[in-house]
């Protein structure tokens, strides 16, 4: 009965209730977004790092992957040393460099970012069509594949340096396009190519040098311990576990996490204010009705639970509205933030983490209950006589 009284009270003021639910829906959607943002990119990035099975990165000492142009020299020997470290399953060398594609009989050039890889052990791309690049071949990223002459089967002329006196690419070398790949670390629209490591080292005159190694560890091995063992075995390098890289990213994204905390708190306050206002006014209007119920002998706790149910109901329905709205808003906000330069297209700022989402919604519902408790307690402790007199007036 008490529940139906609460429901009737909400239905009696339909416009007010609908507005309150809409407000709570928007606030809980914002709270949901901030919950998803707080750990979204970190979780998404963690997944990306291990996507190709290489969870460690070995870089020149003190630098993060592709942070500087410094390279690891004597790469063949270093790779062999890393392979001998306990717990290492595979080693993927990568050299990153800028190349020039010769345009119109050598009069002009186009820049393109190139990665030198060992196709059998590489962490940069997933083959979409064609085949891995053999010597004299390059694999192109999707954004490049649609633009001739980068289409698979075509031929391009590449050079690693420009002639300082003529401004033309020096020592141009023809390459055939072997296929198309999904370059997992590229940002949206990035034009990248991958070619055999030895070919790139020759083009840019960096023999036996790499920018980094991706290292795969055997199942069950402790990543941190393997990283530490690599640093001991190879002087002059830093070995980062997935945890280290995620932690470095976390430091760089501190602003977003704190913004999420601030905006999430604001959304929560707005929700609490809305529910509190609606329930308080609703209870205030029914002071006389509640006094009558008490005069009839209805127990205080039943009346209180009715008032609490009112807040709970508004919060619940508000959450139901907020959930799809929040997911839609997350998609829109994600599209905005992915325009930040250098962010891989595969990561997402807003990631659905069911426990976090459930936690956020539980908080909104908890706020609804708390917002009903205060006016409810006041209504059931107020003198019955004054309530009845108010009703009579």
């Amino acid at each position, binding site marked *: 009965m008490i529940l139906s009284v609460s429901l009737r009270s909400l239905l*009696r*003021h339909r*416009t*007010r209730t609908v*507005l*309150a639910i*809409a*407000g709570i829906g*928007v*606030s809980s*959607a*914002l709270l949901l977004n901030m919950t998803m943002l707080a750990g979204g990119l970190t979780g998404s990035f963690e997944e990306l790092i291990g996507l190709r099975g290489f969870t460690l990165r070995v870089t*020149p*000492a*003190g*630098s993060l992957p592709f942070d*500087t142009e*410094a390279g690891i020299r004597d790469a063949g020997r270093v790779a062999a040393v890393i392979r001998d470290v306990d717990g290492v399953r595979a080693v993927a060398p990568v050299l990153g460099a800028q190349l*020039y594609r010769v345009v119109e009989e050598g009069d002009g050039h186009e820049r393109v970012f190139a990665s030198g890889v060992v196709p059998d052990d590489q962490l940069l791309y997933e083959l979409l069509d064609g085949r891995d690049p053999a010597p004299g071949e390059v694999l192109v990223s999707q954004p490049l594949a649609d633009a001739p002459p980068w289409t698979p089967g075509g031929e391009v002329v590449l050079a690693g*340096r*420009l*002639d*300082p006196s*003529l*401004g*033309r690419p020096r020592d141009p070398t023809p390459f055939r396009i072997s296929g198309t790949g999904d370059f997992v670390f590229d940002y949206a629209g990035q034009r990248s190519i991958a070619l055999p490591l030895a070919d790139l080292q020759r083009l840019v005159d960096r023999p036996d040098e790499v920018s980094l190694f991706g290292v795969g560890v055997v199942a069950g091995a402790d990543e941190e311990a393997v990283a530490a063992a690599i640093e001991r075995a190879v*002087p*002059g390098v830093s070995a980062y576990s997935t945890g280290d890289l995620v932690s470095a990213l976390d*430091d*760089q*994204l*501190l*602003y977003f996490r*704190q913004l999420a905390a*601030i*905006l999430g708190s*604001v*959304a929560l306050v*707005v929700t609490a*204010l*809305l529910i509190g*206002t*609606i329930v308080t*006014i609703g209870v205030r*209007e029914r002071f006389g009705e509640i006094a009558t119920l008490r005069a009839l002998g209805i127990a205080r706790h039943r009346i209180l639970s009715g008032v609490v149910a009112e807040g709970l109901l508004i919060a619940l329905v508000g959450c139901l509205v907020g959930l799809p709205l929040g997911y839609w*808003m997350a998609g*829109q*906000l994600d599209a*905005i*933030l992915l*325009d*930040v*330069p250098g962010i891989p297209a595969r990561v997402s700022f807003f990631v659905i983490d069911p426990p976090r989402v459930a936690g956020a919604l539980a908080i909104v519902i908890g706020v609804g209950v708390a917002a009903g408790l205060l006016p409810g307690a006041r209504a059931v402790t107020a003198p019955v006589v004054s309530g009845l007199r108010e009703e009579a007036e």
Partner: protein
Amino acid sequence: MILALAAILLLAAPQMAEAQLPEILVERRLAEQLPLAIGDTVHLRALASEGAPLPFRVGGVHERAADPSRISRNEPEVRLQLSDLEALLPDHDRVDRFAVTLDPEADQDSVIAWIESLAYGAAIYPTEALADEASTTFRVISRFHDAIGAVTILASGVFLLCVMLIRVDERRRDMGLLRLMGVSRGTVFRTIVLEAVAIAVAGSIAGAILGTLIAGVVNRYFAGVYDTTLRFATVTPDIIIVAMALGLVLGIGAGVLAALRISRTAPRRLGEGR
């Protein structure tokens, strides 16, 4: 001369009385962390080099200019003469970039064309282009803030309308009495809208004060987190005017909607309980 920067390792060093050592400038935060004082001797080695550490004398302590583009990479830095840094690195006679100052009469485009004809492969950016390139991230973040702002305005608008409806609902009987006494529909309408304007003005003023206070707290908090003089939240007169205008528009809109509901209802029905 350009002072090049690189990842270098500071090695603990005993105090040495070497007068002719090359000097470095140490950023204030690093000087406090280690700690270091002017005249101290430190040994530096480039992380990317296997060469031996070289001794330097701390010649001064500097405060890094507040630069929002470096806030996510907030490592402390030291500055040294280009030739001294080159001595630490495996690559010599190489710089990351040159900064070029032009004569006031010089034509920027001609100079750029001339440099491009000399240094093939070099990218030359005028100050405006460089600022534009460097601010891409902030433009994106600004768009994100705008989107969040729009959601907040939507939530505030709904909240305001809800509060106005509640206030008007509370006074249905009073309004009904006024109408029965002969007060015109228009007067009742204007009374409610005026009340909404008063609430919106009071709320906007309170919001401006609260916003200014919160901006101060946010700036103080982030200044502590990043140890920077950058300001993360600014409340300018323009922002206050826009926020107050928005508050007023929302408030008046909510008041008009609530007033329409009341003024369209027959006076005898206004007395009925809802």
